[in-house]
């Protein structure tokens, strides 16, 4: 059975989706099915992570060898992503039971779990596939289910947020498709490894340049890289809290991984970063994203929107690291993918606790709640410091790695942007703290509010503790990130 692990990684969540729909009359059962999907995915990811040290694992779908059929590839570069997505999925599943129960009406809750299974399937499939067109299909599965999930937010704005994401997301996916078309036209293959082989003879082919441009622009939409980030704040701000927690932590990260996969193992670093100025453009956009994202976060009135804008900035850090195309840079990018997923997951989870208790997450409504909800706000502060990058948090570890990689590469302007963005992060985290502790609670606050459910608090704190642990002992995420960078940049790639 272990030979089937790469397939099972994706297939179990896939099978859980129709099960959820069949069992929709039993809401708790559908939740259990989603939890099962997440747990099995975690188990597969852990087992796979322990097995890739001896080299990449290939799984041939339908028994057809690689360029003729579709293959799944698991190697050092995608096990960290599988682990991140799976861990976040498990946490989101534990969290979702009460959160979805509160925010979505009973008849639609089973559909939320169905869509969560589908999103998980899409993200995992996107991570393990070794075929460019198959990647497009999984991209669309995860996107389409994400649109549905966002639309199930409580406020009416969720509908427009979802629609706008649908339009720009579909344009992005179609751009990826155009890029795949150009790459296919000049190579005749769709398998990533085969593509990489055949591209080497095509120096100076303009169709190939277009393939790179269209694939990357399309992926940039999904990664929410500045200036294609416009969909993200409303989408994460309006989605049901359990969904925001899952998506903010997992979805953009997978898109970033796909970018790395295409850049380093399909098109090749030589073409992408030496012949074409993708690295320079990436650094520029990353710096702008940091500044714009952090600055916009400072002016938000809603905690979920604030966190979403902060994500735009944090994605900037990751993109900056990867754009350096050095081992240190890519490793720093991966490290921040892991740490940011944990941190943002916890923060959106905490915001969801506030929504559960107050009905909204507006900063004005948080006045003086610091003492009433100590656990929630302690979680926000601990992870918020991680966003700023204060030692010894996880955020510090990855930011330190990024800064030293930038120093090595001599990218001074970006370094300035990183520091400025960190200061701005201090401002927006400070605003939350100020609202929660240094303002008087409104007089009409009802005394006996429902207590936050233990399962949700536990889920949030699991991520908080994980982030603290990663801050103190960065050997696990650091080791994964280094292995990923080595797999991407080294010869033992695909």
């Amino acid at each position, binding site marked *: 059975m272990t030979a*089937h692990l790469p*397939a099972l990684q994706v*297939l179990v969540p*896939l*099978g859980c*989706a*129709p*099960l959820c*729909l*069949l069992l929709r009359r039993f809401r708790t059962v559908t939740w259990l099915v989603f939890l099962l999907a997440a747990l099995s995915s975690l188990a597969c990811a852990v087992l796979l992570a322990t097995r890739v040290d001896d080299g990449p694992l290939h*799984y*041939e*779908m*339908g*028994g*057809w060898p690689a*360029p*003729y*059929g*579709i293959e799944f590839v698991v190697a050092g570069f995608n096990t960290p992503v599988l682990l991140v997505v799976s861990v976040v999925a498990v946490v989101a599943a534990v969290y979702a039971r009460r959160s979805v129960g509160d925010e979505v009406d009973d*008849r*639609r809750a089973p*559909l*939320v779990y*169905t*869509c969560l299974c*589908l999103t998980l*399937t899409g993200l995992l*499939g996107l991570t393990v596939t070794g075929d460019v*067109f*198959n990647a497009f*299909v*999984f991209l*669309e*599965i995860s996107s*389409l*289910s994400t*649109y*549905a999930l966002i*639309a*199930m937010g409580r406020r009416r704005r969720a509908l427009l947020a979802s629609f706008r994401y649908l339009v720009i997301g579909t344009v992005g996916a179609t751009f990826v498709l*155009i890029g795949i078309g*150009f790459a*296919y*036209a*000049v*190579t*005749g*293959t769709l398998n990533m490894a085969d593509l990489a082989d*055949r591209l080497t003879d095509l120096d100076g*082919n*303009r*169709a*190939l*340049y*277009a*393939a790179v*441009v*269209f694939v990357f622009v399309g992926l940039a939409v999904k990664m929410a890289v500045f200036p294609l980030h416009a969909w993200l704040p409303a989408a994460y701000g309006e989605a049901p809290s359990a969904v925001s927690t899952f998506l903010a932590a997992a979805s953009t990260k997978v898109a970033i991984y796909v970018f790395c996969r295409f850049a380093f193992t399909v098109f090749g670093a030589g073409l992408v970063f030496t012949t074409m100025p993708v690295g320079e453009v990436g650094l520029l956009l990353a710096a702008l994203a940091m500044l714009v994202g952090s600055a916009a976060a400072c002016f938000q009135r809603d905690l979920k929107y604030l966190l979403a804008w902060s994500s735009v900035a944090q994605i900037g850090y990751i993109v900056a690291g990867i754009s350096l195309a050095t081992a240190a840079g890519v490793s720093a990018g991966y490290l921040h993918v892991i740490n940011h997923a944990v941190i943002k997951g916890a923060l959106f989870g905490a915001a969801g606790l506030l929504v559960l208790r107050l009905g909204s997450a507006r900063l004005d409504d948080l006045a003086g709640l610091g003492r009433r909800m100590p656990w929630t706000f302690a979680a926000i502060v601990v992870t918020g410091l991680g966003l700023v990058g204060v030692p010894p948090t996880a955020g510090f570890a990855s930011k330190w790695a990024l800064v030293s990689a930038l120093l090595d590469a001599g990218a001074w302007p970006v370094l300035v942007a990183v520091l400025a963005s960190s200061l701005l992060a201090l401002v927006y985290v400070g605003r939350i703290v100020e609202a929660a502790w240094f303002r008087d609670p409104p007089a009409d606050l009802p005394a006996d509010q429902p207590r936050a459910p233990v399962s949700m608090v536990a889920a949030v704190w699991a991520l908080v503790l994980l982030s603290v642990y990663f801050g103190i002992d960065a050997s696990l995420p650091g080791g994964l990130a280094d292995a990923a960078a080595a797999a991407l940049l080294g010869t033992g790639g695909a």
Partner: protein
Amino acid sequence: MTVFTLINISLLAILVATALTVSRLRALYEAAMLSALFSLVTACLFVLLDAVDVAFTEAAVGVGISTVLLLGGLALTRSREAVTPRRRRLPGAAVAILAGGTLVYASQDLPAFGSADSPVQRHPLTDTYLHQSQEDIGIPNTVTSVLASYRGLDTLGELLVVFTAGVAVLALLGPLAHPVDARRRDDLDLVDYRVLRVISAMLMPFILLFALYVLFHGDFGPGGGFQAGVIFAAGFVLYGLVFGLDKAQQVVPRVVLWALIPFGLLLYLGVGVVNMLLGGSFLDYDTLSSDPAAGQHLGILLVESAIGITVAAVMTTVFFSFANRRATR
């Protein structure tokens, strides 16, 4: 200039003209009908480009289902578009010119159109799919063998996308959103049109028969599970339009429909899992029989049926969701 080139250019010119008209039309019903025409011409162009399966699908989906859905959507919203202000035109034009310029620049290094010596044609995939597949799978329609066997996972993904769309529309519009079904009769069911009812009743069995033919003939000619599913759905949609939604939902109760949506997907998955249990990898149909080719035949048939079931159920459900929405308002 050959006849082929002449027809090709004419069809492309019609397409561009239609697209321009659609983009300028502010009356959205007209735009929807023109986009149906656009799909029809596209289908003709697909035939010209030797893609008969794709043409079939485009005709069934673009002209059929998409148009019905668009009209359904328009019936529930507003059918006239506001004037696009000048300041909105610039960004769109800028992006379009930039992207178009990149495409034209890049196309200089694309292999010539129709070249038999392009990288696509020279790649060993071509020989495998066109000739080796005759021995390995033994199905004349290579599109079907690539779709269902070589790239069976893509097709499973495609089915999953359809499934997702079904779930999403149910979540947005489905009866879930409005538990109470207080419906009134309205002219959507066209009950007064006696001629239409007689003709539809006469054609109905043939439409369903044709769907089955398309499903089982996909090995030898254009067709397959997806097209069959869409034709099935079109049959139900026609029935619902002509005889009323109530009656259509008596014929195909919602419970059945909703059970069929996951059933098709689980059947597809089940075939793959059985392959795994029999010692092959996922979707390795060779394991289904002692003779690999026979196994492939069986596997492809099962998988195509699974696609047909889920697609028909999802498309019908989506249509009923839109149609019911109108009645509940």
